């Protein structure tokens, strides 16, 4: 089976760069599953999970991104993300605490932070896409 080259880049550094089988990215209008030979798409992302699978569809890594962009062409997929963490390294209790603190505050920025934090919590709790 063919592979597609996948780059995950944050402002600070290049986080992931390898040939992979499938990638799922959280597009603004819905999740996008990307296989080798995908048509050319440029999409902005919502906060959520970027899942990376190898050729036999087993999960290699899952990252949480707080938004960004994806550029996809048949040979390559590039995700530019604002902040990237591995889902495994997220801690449920500290995020829950963060959400509680943010809920007591107001303002536009807080709202944004809150939606990111909620998305983080969701990323830990859900397990669909673990097997495809």
């Amino acid at each position: 089976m063919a592979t597609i080259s996948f780059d995950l880049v944050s402002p600070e550094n290049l986080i992931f760069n390898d040939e992979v089988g499938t990638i799922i990215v959280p597009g603004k209008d819905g999740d996008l599953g990307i296989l080798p030979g995908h048509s050319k798409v440029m999409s902005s992302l919502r906060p959520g999970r970027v899942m990376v699978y190898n050729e036999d569809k087993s999960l290699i890594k899952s990252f949480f991104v707080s938004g960004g962009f994806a550029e996809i062409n048949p040979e390559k997929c590039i995700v530019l993300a604002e902040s990237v963490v591995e889902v495994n390294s997220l801690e449920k209790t500290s995020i829950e605490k963060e959400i509680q603190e943010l809920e007591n505050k107001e303002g536009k920025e807080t709202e944004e932070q809150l939606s990111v934090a909620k998305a983080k919590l969701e990323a830990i709790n859900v397990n669909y896409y673990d097997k495809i």
Partner: protein
Amino acid sequence: MPSLKDIKTQINSVGSTKKITSAMKMVAASKLRRSQEKAEAARPYSSRLEEMLSSLASSAASGEGIIKLLTGTGNDQNYIVVPVSADRGLCGGFNSSINRETFKLVKSLEGNGKKVQLMPVGKKSRDFFNRVMKDQIIESFVDLNVSSTGYESALNISNKLQELYFDGEFDKCILVFNKFKSAISQEVTQQQLIPLDVSNSEKQEEKENSSNAIYDYEPDEETILKDLLPKNVSIQIFKVLLESDAGEQGARMAAMDNATRNAGEMIDSLTLKYNRTRQAFITKELIEIISGAESI
């Protein structure tokens, strides 16, 4: 003629200066390596963002809202100049060349009848412009600590700039910073940040367009562009901060290397002087003893 003791004290004091400068050089060298790595790590993001933007730029026709970051306000009257210097001195001509270049730029813009405001980044340029053009400073950013919280500082600066831009405070924004060329050389560079200058990426765009087809956009071009443009401003600033930080360490390393060498030369010449003076004293004493003995 200075006494032996005077020369000895002088040698000692130059010696301790030399120790300090050589230590500073070593610190700068290790910091330089780290800053350089950071600057290199940030490069893929900004270059890919630029690629994306250049393929999108052609679709921006209307000058409404956020798109103004790309198309400009249509005016050319109010400027904002952002000199990026270091927070600390002792790095040769690093800061003064930034200040000089900015000063020249401001004067020439004013000569053309433009209104110029300043937003210095870094203590050294803030202090300088506080002295010479105090009433033109609208905001200043100091103590950025680029190596640890660089991106956050860049976000602060870019948010402030965009706020001012959409309030109609200025039409064009120009960054003046030291571009990192190599460990020993920096180049003072001017970059137009707002509106975005896509002229240098146009060539790239042509290449892309000729080789492949058009993208699908999700949700649509305008929405993506609206997300992408503000981000690009922050990333450009972040890149400049990193370059300037690496440049600062490089400049400091070179300056301290020079200082250490000069101190070494000074010690050599002082030691020579010390030995000559000592010999002169001995000779003088001998002559006195001999002539004393002869007269008996």
